[in-house]
């Protein structure tokens, strides 16, 4: 198996129809079938919309019966968010990577925001599986996170320790504060995501793909502003705030290698120190 030198990733910043799984699935299937990219990425809960309340479970998919989306066997890998009905009868906010009829990875959102405008802890169970990377394409290891997970840097760190080249973050992040003025107007909350994506990419020498949704549900305006950041922390491409958009980016394995040469953070990291310290902290709590 030869590693692919490049990887064409396509992000779709969309506004999923709330509660209309059939419409969202049709859109997703058509978009993937029409794409010439290697990987096509959609936002958090792309199959259902976000403000699901008590309907979450009925709109969920039981992945034990196979993926809920039909994709061509020779087509791109799709990464999208959905509600998963677990084999334990609990309901999860999940991200999946799917190629043809195979699920390459399922990540259950670990950190469910239940504060301010968020109510996820009342609707979903928190994921408790350890985070694991998967092979996205030949020679490319990827990890999945969902929105709030990204604000808990331990998860990105754990994936980095497992040699991830690409971190894919699906989000349904609201815009807060009126957009700033002028060209490229952005919500007040956009800077935080920007800092988070760039610093994570730089610290771990990995590509960061952040796919955020747009649209309005329940008075909440989802911000968009999806982006791809290279392993040096530079923003390669960025979608506008508030509008549907498609981003295409070509990732290069050499760039990952180059980023890890001058910056040896990952090489020098000592997880044993982290582990010992964590054990002590937990003992003393």
């Amino acid at each position, binding site marked *: 198996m030869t590693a692919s030198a490049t990887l064409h990733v396509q992000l779709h910043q969309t506004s999923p129809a709330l509660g209309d799984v059939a419409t969202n699935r049709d859109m997703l299937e058509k978009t993937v079938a029409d794409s010439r990219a290697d990987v096509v990425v959609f936002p958090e809960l792309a199959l259902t919309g976000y*403000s699901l*309340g*008590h309907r979450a479970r009925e709109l969920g998919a039981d992945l034990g019966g196979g993926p809920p989306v039909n994709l061509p066997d020779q087509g791109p890998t799709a990464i999208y968010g959905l509600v998963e009905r677990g084999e334990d009868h609990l309901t999860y906010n999940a991200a999946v990577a799917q190629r043809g009829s195979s699920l390459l990875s399922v990540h259950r959102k670990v950190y469910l925001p239940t504060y301010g405008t968020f*109510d996820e802890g*009342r609707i979903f169970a928190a994921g408790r599986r350890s985070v694991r990377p998967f092979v996205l394409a030949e020679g490319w290891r990827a990890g999945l996170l969902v929105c709030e997970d990204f604000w808990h840097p331990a998860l990105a760190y754990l994936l980095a320790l497992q040699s991830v080249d690409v971190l894919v973050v699906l989000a349904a992040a609201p815009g807060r504060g*009126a*957009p700033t*003025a*002028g060209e490229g*107007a952005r919500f007040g909350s956009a800077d935080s995501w920007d800092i988070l994506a760039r610093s994570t990419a730089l610290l771990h020498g990995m590509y960061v793909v952040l796919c955020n949704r747009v*649209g*309005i*549900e*329940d*008075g909440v*305006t989802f911000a968009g502003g999806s982006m791809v950041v290279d392993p040096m922390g530079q923003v390669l491409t960025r979608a506008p705030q508030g509008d549907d958009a498609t981003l295409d980016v070509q990732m290069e394995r050499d760039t990952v290698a180059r980023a890890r040469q001058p910056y040896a953070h990952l090489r020098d990291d000592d997880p044993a120190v982290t582990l010992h310290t964590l054990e002590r902290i937990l003992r003393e709590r």
Partner: protein
Amino acid sequence: MKNEAERQGGIVAAVVAAEVARTRCRGVVLASPPGPEADLLERWLTATVPLRRPDPGAVSDVAGALASVGAPGAHVEALAWQAVAQAQALSQGLLLLGTTNKTTLLLEDAPLPARVLPLGDVWATDVKRWVGRATLPTVLRDATDAQASAVERSLGDYLQEGVARDVAFTAIGALAPLVLAALDGAERNRRGLLVPKLQKWTVGADLAR
């Protein structure tokens, strides 16, 4: 380059348009008497959704009827506008909008005019900056502009920034106990439905969203 009012207005108009589409309404009707907030909403919404105001003649008739059954004078006009607007919303397929601003929503213990409050996150002092006047809650009726701004900053610090209650309101001095009493008094109104919790999943509590 857009100014702040236009930027906030864009978000408000988009949210209202989304709710009009979701509820399959033909437009909106304002459930509050004429005033600065109604003027601001009209300015923000006109280009996006058809907007109606209740017929003043009908409001006058309903106000007379309310007065005749002993409705408190201070509330007669507001109740009459709500009643006529609600009737208009039902008969014409319109979405009922209240015009209450954020400062009043937080500090006035009064029934909400509608479920949808497009200005519910817009401070009164911002309304005043943009249209020259604003509706203030009773507790701030005699406050100067500087005092009203200081109160809003305290409310923001306490409710949005997590500043401790005994610290957030020190800057407003003697107004603090009055403002806090008003804030606590109005709290129930902002929580929407009140339903006795009898079962595992109760409308208004667990099934509020």
